[in-house]
C-alpha cells in the first residue's frame, strides 16, 4: 500500500480544522461539514477517534483519485472495473458530484434531453390542474419539515441562504417529468442531501431522475410495490443469513416494514449516522452499481446490531435497537462499514436477488388482488 505523503495529509487536515473553527465543542464543530447540527447526544470522542484515522484514508484515496482523474483535468469517468473499485473505497469530495453524474447515467440523460429541459419543466405546469395542485401542496407540506436542523434548510423559503426554493424546484420538476410517480415523501430527503453535496440544482434533478427512473426498484410508485417487495426480500435474506435475528423478529412480531422501510425510501439518509459520510459512501456505490448495495447495506446494519437484537427482551427493545443505528459507532466508521458490506453479506448474487425480488413482488401483487376483492365484496352491503 502506498502511504499518503505527509504534506497532502496535512493539507487535508488543515482544511477540516478550518471548517470546524467556529462554534466548536472541543475541536469539533456543533455543525458538521454538511450543515447538520450535531445533537446533544453526539459522541464527540468516538467521532474524533474515528475521524483521525479516516482522514488518513481520505488523503490516501484522494492521491489515487487525483492520479486517475489527472488532477481533475480528465473530462469524463468511464464506468470500468477500476472506477468501480475506487467508488467502493469512497469518492473524494472534490470529485463526487462529477463522478456520480458520470457513473449513474445522469449526465447522459441530461445530454440526450432537449436543451434546458429542467428549466422548461419549471416554467410549464402540467395541464391537469388537480395534479398540479396536489403535487405542489404535498411538496410544500414537507419543505419546512426537511432537515429542520440543517443550516442550509432551516432559514425558510424566503431566505436567500436557504436551499428550500431549490428543493421545491427539483421535486416539482421531477413530479412533472414523472407524473405517474409525482411526489412521494422521502424523496425530499434524497433531493435535499443531493443539494448539499452536488449543489447545482439541475444536476441534482438529473441524479434524482437517474435514481428513480433507472437505478431503484419501484419504491415510490402509487402502490409502493418495489418497497413492499424489498421488505419481504430482507425477511427472506435475514432468515437465511442471520436466522437468530429473524427468530427474534418473529417472536416479538416486528415486521421489517416497521424498522426498515425508511432505510430504502430515504436511501439511508437519517438512518445511519447523520455525519453524512456513511450515507455518501453507500451512495458512491449505489450510483455505480445499482440498488443491490442497498440490500447489502441493510444486511450489514443487521449484522452490526445482531448482538444487541439478540439480547432484546421485547418488541419496544427491538425497535429501539434499530433506531439507535444512527448512533452506532461501528456504523459510524464508514470505511469499515463499507468493507463489511461486501464481505459479511456474501454470498449474494445479482441473479439470486433478482429472483427474490420477482418472487416477492408477485406475492404482494396477489395479496393486493385478494385485498381489493374483499373490498369490492364488502362495499355493496354498506
Amino acid at each position, binding site marked *: 500500500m502506498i502511504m499518503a505523503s505527509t504534506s497532502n495529509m496535512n493539507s487535508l487536515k488543515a482544511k477540516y480544522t478550518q471548517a470546524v473553527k467556529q462554534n466548536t465543542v472541543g475541536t469539533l464543530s456543533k455543525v458538521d461539514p454538511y450543515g447538520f447540527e450535531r445533537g446533544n447526544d453526539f459522541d464527540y470522542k468516538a467521532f474524533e477517534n474515528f475521524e483521525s484515522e479516516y482522514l488518513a484514508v481520505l488523503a490516501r484515496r484522494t492521491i489515487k483519485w487525483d492520479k486517475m482523474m489527472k488532477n481533475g483535468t480528465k473530462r469524463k469517468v468511464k464506468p470500468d472495473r477500476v472506477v468501480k473499485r475506487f467508488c467502493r473505497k469512497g469518492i473524494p469530495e472534490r470529485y463526487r458530484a462529477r463522478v456520480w453524474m458520470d457513473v449513474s447515467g445522469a449526465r447522459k440523460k441530461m445530454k440526450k434531453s432537449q436543451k434546458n429541459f429542467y428549466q422548461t419543466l419549471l416554467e410549464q405546469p402540467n395541464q391537469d390542474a388537480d395534479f398540479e395542485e396536489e403535487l405542489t401542496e404535498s411538496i410544500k407540506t414537507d419543505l419546512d419539515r426537511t432537515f429542520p436542523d440543517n443550516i442550509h434548510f432551516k432559514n425558510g423559503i424566503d431566505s436567500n441562504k436557504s436551499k428550500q426554493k431549490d428543493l421545491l424546484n427539483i421535486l416539482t420538476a421531477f413530479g412533472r417529468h414523472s407524473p405517474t410517480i409525482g411526489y412521494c415523501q422521502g424523496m425530499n430527503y434524497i433531493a435535499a442531501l443531493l443539494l448539499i453535496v452536488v449543489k447545482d440544482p439541475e444536476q441534482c434533478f438529473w441524479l434524482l431522475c437517474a435514481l428513480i427512473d433507472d437505478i431503484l426498484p419501484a419504491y*415510490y410508485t402509487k402502490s409502493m410495490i418495489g418497497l413492499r417487495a424489498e421488505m419481504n426480500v430482507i425477511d427472506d435474506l435475514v432468515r437465511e443469513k442471520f436466522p437468530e435475528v429473524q427468530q427474534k423478529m418473529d417472536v416479538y412480531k416486528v415486521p421489517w416494514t416497521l424498522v426498515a422501510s425508511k432505510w430504502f425510501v430515504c436511501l439511508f439518509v437519517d438512518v445511519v449516522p447523520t455525519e453524512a459520510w456513511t450515507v455518501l459512501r453507500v451512495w458512491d456505490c449505489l450510483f455505480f452499481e445499482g440498488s443491490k448495495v442497498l440490500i447489502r447495506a441493510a444486511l450489514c446494519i443487521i449484522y452490526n446490531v445482531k448482538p444487541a437484537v439478540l439480547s432484546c427482551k421485547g418488541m*419496544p427493545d427491538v425497535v429501539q435497537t434499530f433506531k439507535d443505528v444512527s448512533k452506532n459507532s461501528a456504523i459510524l466508521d464508514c470505511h469499515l462499514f463499507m468493507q463489511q458490506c461486501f464481505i459479511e453479506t456474501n454470498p449474494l448474487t445479482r441473479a439470486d436477488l433478482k429472483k427474490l425480488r420477482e418472487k416477492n413482488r408477485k406475492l404482494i401483487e396477489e395479496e393486493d388482488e385478494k385485498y381489493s376483492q374483499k373490498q369490492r365484496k364488502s362495499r355493496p352491503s354498506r
Partner: protein
Amino acid sequence: MASRAPQRPNNASPQGKICQFKLVLLGESAVGKSSLVLRFVKGQFHEYQESTIGAAFLTQTVCLQDTTVKFEIWDTAGQERYHSLAPMYYRGAQAAIVVYDITNQDTFARAKTWVKELQRQASPNIVIALAGNKSDLSNKRMVDHDEAAAYSDENGLLFMETSAKTAMHVNDIFLAIAEKLPKNDAGGTAANRPTSGVDITQGGGSNPQGGCCGRSQ
C-alpha cells in the same frame, strides 16, 4: 415544557392488572400525528416535526383506578400512497386515533375514509378516537366542532379537539381510550394478541420506562 407526560389521575398505586394495547395513529399528512405522540410520550413539541417515513413506534403507560395501561403506539406516514402499508400497521390494533387538522376540510374527509376502512378491515372491537388537532389555530378553523362531534356520535367514536402544540386534550384522549378498552383477560380483541392483558413485568425488559405513568423518556 408546560406539560410533561401524563399525570397519574389519582394517587392509587398501580396494584391492579397491567394491560398492554396496540394503538395506531392514522390520518392525512401533516395533521400532527407524530406531534400528538411526541407530546403524549415525551411532553415535547417541535414546530417543524420531520415527516414520518414508513412508521414509527413508541410506548407510553397510563394508570387508571386499578389498571396500568401500556400503549404500544404505531405512528404512521400520512401520504396517500403509504396507505398500502397501513393494513400491516392496524392489523391486531385494539385502538386507533384518527387525526385531522381543524384548519383543513380535506383532512376531515380523509379521516372519515380512515374510519370507514377501520370499521371494515380492522379488529371488530377496535376502539376508535377521532382527534381534531391544531385546536390552537381556531381562528383558521374550517371544520366545525359540532359537525365532527355529531359524526363521532353516529359512528361510536371518542372525539376530542386536541392541540399537540399547547398539549390541550392530548393526555385526555389517550386516557379516554384507556378507559374504554376492555381490561379483562378474555376481553374482546385481546384474544388474538398474546401480549394483551398480560403482566408485562416479564416483557418490559431493559426498556427504561420503569414503574408507571409518565416515567417515559
